[in-house]
């Protein structure tokens, strides 16, 4: 057992503090970004109305604003998208049924393409955000319980730390790039939660297996050795898997069209963060915690004798 591929010697655990520092620095930066720029909340979370208008020819914001004003409506903002053939008008208030009908008629007559219109009342917006939060919380508890059952508590917690790390990253990047946060964004974050956990479990599974073969795990160094070995063994799988999923997410980002782009971008970021965290964060955290646990056990009987 001493040759070739498995000889890639990289001491993941030794450099753990660097990884922790990198992640911590990025989290602080991300936190700052969120504090400064905030999130570009779509109407799903902020209430109001949104009108997507499309035409065969290039649109201007003035033109769209003028058409809307003719209907007696004042948009809060009008922005162009999709190479200028699409315009998005946002309203602070909910448009009522008749206003929606008027807009539809007006622009369908004008451009022969029926606009898409969404309206959300403040109550519903709050509910959506609340439900999303509850979903993440419940999913986390469920995952910790399952991992604790199949693996051990410490690994469950390490997996959840990695998970929040990844979810936070997506939110931070969305804040920095000011991409609109809507309901599909929540779906993306939750997918990453699932993927991130999947990725971490594969590594932990190997650690669990290798621990069985080790006769004596007494010190932190023993734990570090097992973790390093397991990470090297699963490295090819981790990289290949993330590559294939990134292919899919990239294709969605580039070719998928406007409606699905925020979702695809969130996936892309989350996938990369997820792989990073399961290789460089989750296992190392566990190693540190496990090392402390071993130390306690070692000294516990001595103390009781005193």
């Amino acid at each position: 057992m001493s040759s070739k591929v498995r000889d890639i010697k990289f001491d993941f655990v030794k450099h753990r503090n660097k990884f922790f520092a990198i992640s911590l620095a990025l989290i602080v930066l991300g936190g700052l970004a969120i504090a400064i720029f905030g999130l570009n909340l779509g109407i799903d979370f902020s209430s109001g109305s949104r009108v997507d208008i499309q035409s065969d020819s290039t649109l201007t914001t003035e033109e769209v604003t003028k058409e809307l004003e003719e209907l007696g409506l004042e948009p809060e903002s009008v922005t162009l998208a999709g190479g200028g053939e699409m315009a998005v008008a946002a309203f602070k208030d909910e448009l009522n049924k008749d206003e929606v009908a008027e807009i539809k008629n007006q622009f369908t007559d004008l451009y022969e393409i029926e606009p898409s219109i969404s309206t959300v009342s403040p109550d519903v917006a709050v509910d959506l955000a609340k439900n999303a939060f509850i979903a993440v919380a419940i999913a986390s508890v469920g995952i910790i319980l399952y991992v604790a059952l199949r693996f051990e508590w410490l690994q469950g917690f390490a997996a959840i730390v990695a998970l929040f790390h990844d979810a936070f990253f997506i939110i931070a990047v969305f804040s920095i790039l000011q991409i609109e946060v809507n309901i599909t964004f929540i779906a993306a974050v939750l997918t990453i939660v699932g993927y991130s956990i999947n990725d971490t479990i594969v590594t932990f599974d190997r650690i669990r297996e290798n621990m069985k073969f080790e006769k004596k795990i007494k010190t932190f160094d023993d734990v570090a050795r097992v973790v390093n070995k397991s990470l090297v063994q699963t490295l090819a799988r981790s990289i290949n898997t993330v590559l294939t999923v990134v292919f899919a997410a990239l294709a969605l980002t580039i070719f998928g069209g406007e409606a699905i782009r925020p979702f695809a971008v969130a996936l892309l970021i989350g996938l990369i963060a997820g792989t990073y965290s399961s290789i460089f964060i989750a296992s190392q955290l566990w190693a540190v915690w496990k090392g402390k646990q071993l130390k306690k056990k070692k000294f516990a009987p001595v103390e009781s004798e005193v």
Partner: protein
Amino acid sequence: MVKKGRIVAFFLIVLLLGGLIGTTVMGVTKEIKLGLDLQGGFEVLYEVTPAQEGQELSQDLLNSTVSALYKRINVLGVSEPRITIEGEDRIRVQLAGVKDQNQARELLSTQAELTFRTTDDKEQMSGADLKEGAAKVVFDNNQPVVQVTLKNPEKFANITREISQLPPPDNRLVIWLDYEEGDSYQEEVTKPADEQKFISDPAVRTVLSQNTVVISGPPFQLEEAENLKELLNAGSLPVQLEEIYSTSVGAQFGEQSLNKTVLAGFIGIGLIFLFMLFYYRLPGAIAVITLSVYIYLILVVFNWMNAVLTLPGIAALILGVGMAVDANIITYERIKEEIRSGKSIMSAFKAGGRRSFTTIFDANITTLIAAGVLFAYGTSSVKGFAVMLITSIVVSFLTAVWGSRILLGLWVKSRALNKKPGLFGVKESEIDEL
């Protein structure tokens, strides 16, 4: 000694699968129900309040509202309406592929409570006095009018007797649709005819004792008369509906999203296939076969479940491909590891398969937990995503673990691969000597 029978069996299975998929895939894709984000349509979330004051909003009331809404939607000829009760006082209506969205929206939220009132707005008769389902469109001098049938002609005779004795202009019977507290005939009658809120206000000069009443409208267009008839026949809603969330997607928007996402999906999956073939060789080719079967099965299962494919659903499907690929990669990496440690192809295949199983199992279960929570707590599009993700995980587990193993097993057990680690992407030089 190579057992050719197993290799023949492999190709037979592949041919069979290819034949099955090739001949039925078009039919399967045609049957898939597209969500409103992929074909246009709209979705409205209504907050429900009882029509009568003091009435409690019970589950029964919500249920009868839902069935009344279904009846109305039948008028529109939408093939797959979805109406769900959410929470305690909300109803979500999803209509995909509806042609006239404005008309549909109007038709849905109209309470359709017909009342007959005096000119000072006192209610004389209501929808409850009409025979159910008996409204029809008839023609009066080539002008479409709506005729309703009364349950009790005597009551109508009494009402008309009283009104006919009033001096003009108060001898009118005012017919309202959805009279709201505060509406006033005196106010409305001064407005131009097309802005008046009541339907019509015929003058009553004699006692009317027949059992049918004709609503002649503010002259109706034929379509308006038909709509009113359908509304009356579908029955009034026992509640008031207020839109608190709505989203409507133009048909062209939907079609564009569908085409682009499907194209992106093909490209993404194509790249994954190329990667698998290049990196894992023979097992990679088997992965490509099982992945194709996976996508086909997903569509078939989706049809069975009568589920609706939405934009996030397509994303979940593509993500599911990623998970299925992952299961393959975990297995193949494990087999490669065993080959490198010096095991024969046969025992490497067995050990790799056994050891990768628990990994794949635990990883899938944890993702399933996340997807299950999404399903329970998500609404509409998130729910659609969760349904697809759960289906994907289950089907990918079957095809990637079980399917791949059977197909690869045929090759391994044929012994054709013995001493050919290159077919697994393992170089001779990497193998340990035992």
